């Protein structure tokens, strides 16, 4: 039986133009799909969206939907105008954790597509801003059926609500010469240690892990992860002087001076008279700019590891915050290293769970209690790499200065002894 199609004059205008149109895609589901359930759902979804465009308001409200055994992972959506658009009155999204690095075989994508059109709307996004596959649109029984099916072949729900969220890492070692760590492995060690905290929201608010393989930070970890792990190195960058000469030959000295040497934030580069490059590695801050410009000639060093920053987040509630350096450098080579990074995450999340106010992110908690209290809580010593400058105001009580200074010298002695 043919459905009565809603008139959609406003959103029809989003079918014009050269960029692929999501409206045309939803119309294909309405007009071409063999399943009448999907035709009706797409039709009513388009009808409600047109209603939003006409009135400039949204008409979805949240609720409580979950699969058996879990408390989160579904974004429930019930329509406020469901009487007019009954076939899409329940339109829940399942957040599903993608494979690390967002890698897929087309075979696996087809399997996911088959499952989703059986139980849902057939509309999906790779990926949401946190990093989940967003399977958009099904009713309450559909969420359980779809989850049961994909869970059997290796996929699991992500986080939603005040919990550990789905993590994200860059393409990294899989296809990038600037990778300084095994991003996929670090990310999976971290997030998969907290599956209970992903599936059963019980934290003050959300907690996100993101892993970037170098300071270009392609997954925006510093700006939006509670715990950002960024690959870096601490020995000298590698220079292939023949490639430097070839680059100068090709682009010219002026280009190299203007775009490489003078763009170095710490002025640590110098172009020699023979068109080779000198680098003051002690003052290199691993910003990546010169490696980005001359990626054939310059490469990260061999002594690789990661920097950890804690407390990045978006606007709610006190404004956007960047992460702060908490671990300036740690190696990520052995199983002990992996155990240690997971331990740092556990200490952080335990402290967050006990000390943050309701709906307060880690960064906001640190802002409220001060970095030093947080560091003491997770058992990490202070380090001058954690600050952009020392304190500027003298109004502080320092009567145990001698003890604190002794700790510094003791630590330095221990590090020297350890070699």
């Amino acid at each position, binding site marked *: 039986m043919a459905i009565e199609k809603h008139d959609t004059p*406003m*959103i029809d*205008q*989003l079918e014009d*133009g050269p*960029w*692929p*149109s999501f409206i*045309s*895609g939803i119309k*294909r589901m309405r007009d071409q799909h063999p399943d009448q359930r999907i035709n009706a759902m797409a039709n009513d979804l388009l009808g409600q969206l047109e209603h939003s*465009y006409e009135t*400039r*308001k*949204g008409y979805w*409200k949240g609720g409580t939907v979950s699969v*058996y055994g879990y408390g989160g992972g579904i974004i429930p*959506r019930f329509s406020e105008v469901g009487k007019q658009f009954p076939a899409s009155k329940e339109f829940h999204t399942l957040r599903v*954790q*993608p*494979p*690390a*690095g*967002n*890698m897929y075989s*087309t075979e696996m994508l*087809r399997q996911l*597509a088959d499952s989703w059109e059986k139980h849902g709307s057939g*509309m*999906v996004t*790779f*990926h949401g801003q946190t990093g989940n596959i967003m399977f*958009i649109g099904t009713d309450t029984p559909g969420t359980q059926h779809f989850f*049961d099916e994909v*869970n059997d072949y*290796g996929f*699991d729900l992500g986080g939603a609500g005040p919990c550990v969220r789905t993590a994200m890492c860059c393409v990294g070692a*899989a*296809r990038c*010469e600037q990778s300084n760590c095994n991003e996929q492995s670090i990310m*999976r060690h971290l997030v998969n240690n907290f599956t209970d905290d992903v599936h059963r929201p019980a934290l003050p608010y959300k907690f996100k892990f993101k892993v970037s393989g170098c*300071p270009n*930070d392609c997954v925006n970890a*510093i*700006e939006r992860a509670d715990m950002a792990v*960024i690959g870096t190195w601490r020995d000298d960058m590698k220079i292939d002087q023949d490639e430097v000469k070839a680059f100068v030959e090709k682009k010219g000295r002026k280009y190299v001076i203007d*775009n490489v040497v003078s763009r170095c934030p710490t002025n640590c580069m110098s172009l020699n008279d023979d068109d080779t490059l000198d680098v003051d590695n002690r003052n290199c801050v691993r*910003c*990546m*700019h010169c490696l*980005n410009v001359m990626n*054939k000639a310059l*490469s990260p060093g061999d002594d690789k590891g990661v920097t950890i920053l804690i407390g990045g987040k*978006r606007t*709610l*509630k006190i*404004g*956007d915050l*960047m992460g702060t350096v908490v671990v300036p450098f740690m190696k990520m080579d052995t199983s002990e290293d992996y155990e240690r990074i997971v331990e740092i995450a556990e200490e952080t999340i335990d402290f967050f769970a006990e000390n943050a106010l309701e*709906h307060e992110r880690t960064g906001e908690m640190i802002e409220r209690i001060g970095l030093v209290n947080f560091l003491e809580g997770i058992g990490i010593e202070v380090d001058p790499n954690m600050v952009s400058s020392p304190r500027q105001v003298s109004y502080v009580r320092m009567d145990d200065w001698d003890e604190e200074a002794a700790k510094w010298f003791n630590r330095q002695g221990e590090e020297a002894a350890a070699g």
Partner: protein
Amino acid sequence: MAQQHRTPIESGCPDGFQYMHPVMRKNYGQWKYHEHTRPGVLMHAAHSGDQVWTVKAGTQRILDVYSLRKLCEIGETFGDGYVRFTLRSNIEYMVTDEAKVQPLIDALENAGFVVGGTGNSVAMISHTQGWLHCDIPGTDASGVVKAMMDELIDEFKNHNMPNRVHLTTSCCQINCGGQGDIAINVQHTKPPKIRHDLVANVCERPSVVARCPVAAIRPALVNGKPSLEVDEKKCICCGACFPPCPPMQINDPEHTKLAIWVGGNHSNARSKPSFQKLVAAGIPNNPPRWPEATAIVKNILKAYKEDARDWERINDWIDRIGWPRFFEMTGLPFTKFHIDNWRGARERLNASTHIRF
């Protein structure tokens, strides 16, 4: 007897290796350099001598299964059957035979997808759901993005910018779209209209009071019923009370506007990561194609393209030329609203005689 439920397998994040191109598996952590062979295509070379070409294409992001299967079919017929998705929802096909690159590009373009988004292009706009699915949106991100990418398609398909440009858009002031070189975000301009008859049943009032960033909300009895009231002089119209309490109606067909922010940059390259800064507001939320917002974005891109030096991102460019010149070059008005009064605001004031004339 109670119904038996299936127990979930708490497997978490799947291993990416099982779906990874074999040449990427083989050379994992052993890559040497990359080249931009043409817009939309990257070539990565490994120390082993292996090479892999990546073809990147923009999509509509919200994929129907027909589009998804089309993308799979292209990958199977013209690629090696392995793909990945980028942070900005582009699809990437990896192939080890350079001869496959052009047929793959042709197949994608013939099917209506847009090859590009690499190097110094305007990348796909990262965005969220909007009216299609979100419970608190002031606009429809997908529509804004579709309308804007129609106009920026040449910048997506070419390397014509001084450096890459990341655009983002968000449908509320929580800013899920994130930081961008240019961000197009909802900005509310009036306090919430409270449906007092619903508050007591729907909202946990202490949580709503706690959610307000400026402590402008307090419990009150209205018409004999427990409700909330807003000190409208203190209210900053941010909409933070709306998600925990839908009767605090913040979205308004007329007074919910768009604002544009520039200079957000997540990379550590050259300068430290930076947050975006307000440049334009009061822009009408004008579906279905939001022409006013697109015009301002294009205007900013034009000034950046003409004046920035090679490798300067938008924040680097403005750091060099200064904010007065930015407003002069774009013709955007500078108002009292551009002067920050949030916490830490004095750090954004000029405490020097560094002034360009």
